[in-house]
């Protein structure tokens, strides 16, 4: 943690040279273009994988591995271009089994990092991605769960029992400032209804970058440092009263999740939601 804080203050005190800002603006534009090209590239590789004779389960594993590697490649490209730095602790990859993975959500890149660092991750995605020709094959082959899935809890339970992990951002969308912690109860709902423990990931991004409500071309004064800390797994039964109604358990657990993050996050300048239009 100290190391992080030192680096953070070092970064914040550093004055950015205009040439450096221009360079990073161009680099950022390049990376948006790379994403625009890279995502269709994955769409080209996947039909090839799809044609290889192997079981559906194997195809799913391959697809998830390809997504994970692509995300890491993309982030490392940004790192090598000097657009960001990152640290992942305790290790660069984690392999939980049957857990709900949660994280706070300051930046557009959060999901890329978690997809890159966590094995066998199942995402809940907008059902529209199943109909979009660019993304339909990816979400189908990766066997993600659409958010309009009818028997959602049963489906989630099945996946978790098979050792998959489900990623949820309890805030539901990117936050406007670090200690906002406006957690919805969805993560607690799913954890309690599927009786699954929770792996919390703490994300810091300093200075804040690619946040909600920002124009895509606005870049921070210095390249941001992202840190990802995998916190201690939360055994949910220890933090809820099992004899109380489920509705109260959801609230108890949600409060506990917020309390888990709160000591790690300090105030940042608030970007008013009204600025975000």
């Amino acid at each position, binding site marked *: 943690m100290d190391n992080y804080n030192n680096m953070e203050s070092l970064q914040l005190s550093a004055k950015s040279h205009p040439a450096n800002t221009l360079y990073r603006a161009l680099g950022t534009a390049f990376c948006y273009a790379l994403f625009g090209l890279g995502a269709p590239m994955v769409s080209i590789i996947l039909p090839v994988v799809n044609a290889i004779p192997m079981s559906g389960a194997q195809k799913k594993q391959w697809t998830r591995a390809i997504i994970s590697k692509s995300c890491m490649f993309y982030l490392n490209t940004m790192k090598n271009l000097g657009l960001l730095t990152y640290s992942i602790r305790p290790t660069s990859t984690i392999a939980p089994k049957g857990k709900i993975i949660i994280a706070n959500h300051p930046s557009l890149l959060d999901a890329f990092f978690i997809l890159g660092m966590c094995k066998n991750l199942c995402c809940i995605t907008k059902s529209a991605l199943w109909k979009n020709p660019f993304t339909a094959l990816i979400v189908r082959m990766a066997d993600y769960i659409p958010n309009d899935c009818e028997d959602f809890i049963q489906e989630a339970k099945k996946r978790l029992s098979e050792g998959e992990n489900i990623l949820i951002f309890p805030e539901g969308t990117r936050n406007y400032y670090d200690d906002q912690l406006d957690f*919805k*109860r969805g993560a607690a*709902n799913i954890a309690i209804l599927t009786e699954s423990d929770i792996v919390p990931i703490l994300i810091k991004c300093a200075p804040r970058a690619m946040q909600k409500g920002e124009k895509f071309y606005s870049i921070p004064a210095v390249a941001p440092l992202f840190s990802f800390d995998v916190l201690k797994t939360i055994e949910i039964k220890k933090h809820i009263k099992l004899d109380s*109604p*489920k*509705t*109260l358990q*959801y*609230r108890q657990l949600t409060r506990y999740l917020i309390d888990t993050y709160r000591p790690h996050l300090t105030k940042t300048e608030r970007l008013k939601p009204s600025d975000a239009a």
Partner: protein
Amino acid sequence: MKKSRPEVEQYIKEVLVELFEIDEAELKPDARLYEDLDIDSIDAVEMLIEIKKTSKKDINPEQFSEAKTLNDIVDIVLHL
């Protein structure tokens, strides 16, 4: 025997306090369930189950999901 409106209202208030940790002072008849009382769709299902258990009558889930305020719930239960 049919229950009177104040009786039903009191019962619904008790359910809301018990299930959702809501302060009874907030429970005005026109309090909006989702916006004012921080109830979500999963909560609403639990509330439906609870009311069904006590009233021993069938409640149409669609009709129940259209309820916006405490008063709407009271109306539904009164007309069971």
